[in-house]
């Protein structure tokens, strides 16, 4: 069956592309591998965007392109594809207004996440509302949507996409189009692929986002000679609650308690400075740190004073009125834990009244800030696992949004969103930029004037 435009994926990048195409008069057919109820990929777990702006009504102040560029370089160390990175930075300026025009409601004021209030705008209801709003819109624009229709292969010859194969009702079906937009996200939910880097331990890694992001279109493009970009092995990984489901826990499984206590592994050893002054910028390092421990398991331990200092947790803490009892409850050696905590409490130096300046440098691994003594029962423990947010590696594109091949470019094939985020963020992550990459590149692929 021949279509005008085929879009692979059903998250923010795909939807932004679909809206742009339709508004330019190009009919779109969209393939989403998930059921209708679970549509929207990782985009349904988001809640804010980061974009360069002058003072506006959605944020607490202006944020220049230079600042944004500096922040991006700060987390990633450098751009893999400066041309595309600059384009995204530049076009991010139009994003909030475009979203509002397409029925997204922004919050006027935000609380809680103050560190982001100037740079990021928060939309009402979060990502589920974002994608549902766009789905309603593209339905009105007569986009044809196939659900439960994974794309299993892409056929490419001589720099041209000749067609795609979709699985529909357990049967392979071919589709062709004038133009193809690949917006199927990363491969973070593909445990087999991940085991290339993580081996056996992959079974203990939680996938925070959609179980449907298995990266099949990405792999097919790579096999067809597309150039890659973004760091291959790594992904964005944070510490999440061990009790959370293997996939799709979204934002709620993360554990923010770490700076307020100590973190130990199964052998009751600390393995990193919990008080390093990086929070919240690089709190993601804790995902990798936990992944490196025996059984990919660790415990954050705090006392009752610290409750209320960090975001509440989805699962209740494991509680006890003595350290021994706590060790029993989580199955650790009571004696070791008592020793560790008395060493920790004993060596704390309080420079002044600000707990930020409380530290313990007598330990083999120091705790450099927030060294609050653990001495006020009840004590609380949270079991930690690594939680993968997304993978970094994707497809290289050029400034028209087209996929770059080893020899040339795809004349009629574009990539947008997570699948192409490596062009901007080779590794590391800046809160709120995933959607910005998706919206700007999605619109670019949809024909947004490329001047």
């Amino acid at each position, binding site marked *: 069956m021949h279509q005008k435009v085929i879009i692979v994926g059903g998250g923010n990048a795909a939807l932004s592309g679909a809206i742009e195409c339709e508004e330019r008069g190009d009919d779109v057919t969209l393939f989403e591998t998930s059921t209708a109820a679970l549509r929207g990929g990782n985009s349904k777990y988001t809640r804010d965007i980061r974009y360069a702006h002058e003072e506006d009504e959605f944020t607490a102040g202006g944020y220049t392109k230079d600042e944004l560029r500096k922040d991006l370089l700060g987390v990633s160390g450098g751009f893999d594809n400066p041309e595309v990175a600059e384009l995204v930075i530049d076009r991010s300026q139009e994003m909030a207004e475009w979203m509002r025009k397409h029925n997204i409601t922004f919050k006027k004021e935000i*609380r*809680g996440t103050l560190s982001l209030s100037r740079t990021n705008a928060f939309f009402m209801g*979060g990502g589920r509302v974002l994608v549902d709003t766009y789905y309603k819109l593209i339905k009105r624009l007569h986009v044809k949507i196939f659900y439960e229709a994974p794309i299993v292969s892409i056929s490419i010859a001589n720099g041209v996409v000749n067609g795609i194969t979709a699985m529909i009702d357990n049967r392979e079906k071919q589709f062709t189009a004038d133009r193809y937009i690949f917006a199927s996200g990363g491969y973070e939910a593909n445990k087999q692929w991940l085991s290339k880097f993580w081996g056996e331990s992959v079974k203990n890694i939680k996938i925070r986002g959609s179980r449907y992001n298995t990266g099949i279109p990405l792999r097919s493009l790579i096999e067809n000679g597309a150039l890659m970009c973004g760091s291959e092995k790594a992904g964005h990984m944070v510490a999440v609650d061990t009790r959370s489901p293997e996939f799709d826990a979204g934002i*709620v499984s993360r554990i923010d308690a770490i700076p307020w206590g100590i973190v130990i592994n199964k052998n009751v050893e600390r393995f990193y400075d919990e008080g390093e002054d990086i929070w919240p910028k690089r709190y993601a390092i804790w995902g990798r740190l936990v992944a490196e421990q025996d059984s990919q398991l660790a415990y954050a331990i705090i006392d009752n004073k610290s409750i209320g200092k960090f975001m509440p947790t*989805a699962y209740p803490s494991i509680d006890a009125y003595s350290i021994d009892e706590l060790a029993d409850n989580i199955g650790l050696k009571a004696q070791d834990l008592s020793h560790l905590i008395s060493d920790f409490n004993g060596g704390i130096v309080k420079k002044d009244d600000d707990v930020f300046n409380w530290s313990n440098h007598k330990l083999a691994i120091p705790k450099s800030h927030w060294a609050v003594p653990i001495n006020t029962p009840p004590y609380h423990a949270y079991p930690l696992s690594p939680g993968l947010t997304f993978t970094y590696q994707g497809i290289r594109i050029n400034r028209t949004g087209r996929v770059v091949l080893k020899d040339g470019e795809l004349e009629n094939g574009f990539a947008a969103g997570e699948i192409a985020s490596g062009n901007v963020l080779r590794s590391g992550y800046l809160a709120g930029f995933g959607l910005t990459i998706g919206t700007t590149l999605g619109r670019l692929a949809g024909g947004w004037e490329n001047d």
Partner: protein
Amino acid sequence: MIEGNNSTPEAIRQMSICNACRYCEGYCAVWDAIEFKPVLNKGYISHLANLCHDCRDCFYACPYNDPDHEFKLNIPRVLGQVQVETYYANIRPKSMKFALERPILFTSLSAFIAVILVMVYSSLLFGLNKISTLPMTTIIPVSLFKPATIAIYLYTLVIWSWEALSYWSEINEGKRFTASGVMRGVYDAFFYRNFLGGGTGCKVPGENNKYFRLTAHSLVFFGFIVALISISFYPNIFGYVGITYFLGSLAISIGTVALIYIHITEDRGSRSQKQSSLDYAFTVLLFFAGITGLLIPISTGTNWFNWNFLIHDALIAVVFLIAPFSKFIHPVFRLISLIKYRSDSYRL
């Protein structure tokens, strides 16, 4: 969906997930109030439940509401269940609990008995054939009407206060109301601040609705107040007062029809069924009260005027008599929770 009698643990499970998420911040007071409590307890869940007016914005916004998702969240339903359980726990006298358990039976029986009583009473006093011809003030003299209505109002207020105190002792956490909290809370309640869902409206009866229920609910609410003020002029219920009474009744009638329509068409799965039948019983009663009120000016001069007026009075009396044992606990508990919420936030 089977509903047990203690939904609090399930509500705590679900709301703890929300507390780690808070994407719904901005939809209603629940999402502001939850930020004061990193660890939720029973009293606070009851408070949150009465702050929820079941607009379902948070249900449709939630990526965890799919029945196949391990979290299985449905905040409006679980809070609706807890809300009804706070009525059960704080109804006074406690022996009236059965009225909440069988709301449709209780309401229709009360209405039926009241109508029969009024008819029997007036027939015995004046004779069945005379009723339609005697002047209304002979059947219900002002000297009876005024003290009777005042007595009924007082009775309702006393029981409401008794229940309110009980509810307040469940949720107060040893804190007090503040003066500005009271003012703001009352303001919120009257001006439906929370109904607006942070600008996105109220998704009842379905996902694509916005202001349908707001309109229906405020027609009933303000219609009721207008009618209440008008009737206090009895027996001068003609002329201007007649017009306002008519308009009040009209608003109640239209509003209740819309609410009944919501009840019939809405998606069953998203609602607490106990809550649903409480709503339904009381809405239907109000509908009949509204319709008979509407007929007062229409029937003026005909020989069924008196009959209609008597039935109408009986129904209105029932509304007040059973208010503390019905859905009409809701305005009281909701107001208390709104005032607590406002008092808490202004203490910060």
